[in-house]
């Protein structure tokens, strides 16, 4: 081969590579023509149907690959099989679930339930749980035909994964399909904004800030963003069209941002500033890079906690409580966190780089998750303490005689049931250790998945708060401690 022919062939190959790279840009999230608070994927827009606000049920699904998806799926099955007596009739507790907040692996059953409702129980195991997803993703990344795509700077392994999920799991569905279903639960898939480190929920309120229409985003891209495990998978890129849709921030944002210097409520001020930064005209950040939701909160509970403790939240439960619409609040936390055993301390050898880096990456997340669950406990305790204090004062004063009766006004009473499904509540040490050593992967043996499904059901049935709830609602879980 002459030098000229070789150069020509190399040039042709280079051109082909460039053309393929340019052609393989990931699908863009569409712009929003104009801000429309009366439409889009919003909690208050969804039909309640038979689902009452009085019994408000929030479920959170943690990250943890297929392990988390199977545990979450087992809990969904158990909620389907839990019958309660509510407002004069018997019904499945699943039909009372109002919100699902999910992270990473937990986002797959969450998104599928948002799209297909109860058909998840016929379809999801074969479409996702029992499939060798991880092997498929690795094969796709290694297939030379995809190398050209992956060579493009704006296309990563997560884009490839999103295409796979779109084709094989969600059948090309977008949020427009979820909106068209128009029923609760309001399902919130969470990713992490790489730049701010804050949670990025896939709801229209968040996309309003970027003047983008969530209806045109595929569920596959949302699930891929939520599960873009750092290192193994790449971040996904979204366009920010801020400033192009006449968006108006809610009234509280300017007030909370102005509170910054006075430090009245730093968390609220930070939320306001984050909204302002994303919606800054220009836009100041034309591209938003999203990574795994677990980086900001691996159990998906932070959003629900804000909704319970703040009136300034896109789906504030506190507002509903103030309006006396909620009388019982159930929060079911499904946490598939593990704690793999290590032989590190049996040796004097200095731990290696990978061991050290993986410890640095996972330990802060686990500690943060622990604190998040503690925050739920303290929030519940704050509600209980407040109510008990007023009732106690009223009782004490009344005991001193009618002339001393205070009759202090009591805030609307809400009974709270914080329920936890987590491996740490497995009684047997041996069994607990087995589950706590499961790997984080998008592929597990069928019998492991079946064990996780059964465990989700069992741990839910064994939770003391869940048992209290069943007692209060004359309920039962088929196959659980209380016979139906």
């Amino acid at each position, binding site marked *: 081969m002459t030098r000229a022919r070789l150069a020509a062939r190399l040039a042709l190959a280079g051109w082909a590579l460039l053309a393929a790279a340019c052609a393989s840009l990931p699908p863009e999230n569409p712009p929003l023509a104009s801000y429309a608070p009366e439409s889009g994927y919003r909690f208050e827009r969804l039909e309640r149907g038979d689902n009452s606000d009085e019994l408000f049920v929030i479920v959170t699904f943690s990250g943890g690959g297929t392990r988390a998806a199977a545990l979450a799926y087992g809990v969904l099955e158990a909620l389907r099989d839990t019958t309660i007596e509510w407002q004069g009739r018997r019904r499945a507790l699943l039909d009372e679930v109002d919100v699902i907040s999910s992270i990473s692996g937990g986002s797959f059953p969450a998104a599928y339930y948002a799209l297909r409702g109860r058909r998840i129980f016929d379809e999801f195991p074969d479409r996702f749980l029992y499939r060798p997803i991880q092997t498929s993703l690795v094969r796709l990344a290694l297939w030379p035909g995809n190398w050209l795509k992956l060579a493009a700077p704006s296309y990563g392994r997560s884009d490839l994964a999103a295409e796979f999920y779109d084709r094989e799991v969600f059948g090309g569905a977008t949020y427009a399909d979820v909106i068209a279903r128009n029923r609760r639960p309001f399902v919130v898939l969470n990713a992490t904004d790489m730049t701010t480190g804050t949670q990025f929920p896939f709801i229209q309120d968040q996309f309003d800030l970027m003047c983008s229409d969530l209806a045109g985003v595929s569920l596959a891209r949302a699930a891929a963003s939520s599960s873009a495990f750092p290192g193994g998978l790449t971040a996904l890129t979204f366009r920010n069209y801020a400033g192009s849709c006449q968006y108006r921030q809610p009234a509280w944002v300017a007030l909370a941002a102005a509170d910054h210097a006075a430090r009245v*409520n730093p968390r609220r001020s930070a939320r306001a500033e984050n909204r302002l930064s994303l919606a800054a005209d220009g836009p100041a950040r034309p591209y938003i890079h999203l990574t795994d939701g677990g980086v900001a909160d691996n159990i998906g509970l932070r959003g629900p906690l804000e909704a319970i403790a*703040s009136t300034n939240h896109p789906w504030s439960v506190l507002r509903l409580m103030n309006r006396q619409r909620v009388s019982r609040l159930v929060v079911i936390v499904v946490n598939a966190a593990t704690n793999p055993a290590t032989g590190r301390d049996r040796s004097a050898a200095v731990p290696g780089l990978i061991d050290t880096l993986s410890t640095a990456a996972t330990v802060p997340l686990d500690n943060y998750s622990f604190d998040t669950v503690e925050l739920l406990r303290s929030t519940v305790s704050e509600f209980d303490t407040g109510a008990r204090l007023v009732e106690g004062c009223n009782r004490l004063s009344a005991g001193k005689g009618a002339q001393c009766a205070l009759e202090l006004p009591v805030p609307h009473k809400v009974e709270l049931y914080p329920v936890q499904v987590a491996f740490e509540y497995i009684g047997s040490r041996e069994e607990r250790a087995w589950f706590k050593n499961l790997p984080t992967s998008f592929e597990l043996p069928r019998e492991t998945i079946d064990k996780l499904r059964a465990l989700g059901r069992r741990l839910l049935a064994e939770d003391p708060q869940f048992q209290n709830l069943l007692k209060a609602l004359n309920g039962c879980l088929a196959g659980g401690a209380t016979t139906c």
Partner: protein
Amino acid sequence: MEYVKVKFPTRRRVYIDEEENGYTNEVLRIDAGTHDFELGNLANYRPASRTVTVKDTTVLEPLEIAFYRKEDE
């Protein structure tokens, strides 16, 4: 968690930061910080709105935010 009681001679809807949040003369839960309080679009009360920083309240001592009828002037 903070507590407020919006006082008015009659039962009215309370709007906090432009969102409906219960009724007057009841103890309402709210997060700490500066908030806007209104009684809706009716024009027969004063002031039209109040911007108040809510902090350091307890359930036994909610912050009281008063509105008045215009005819009481």
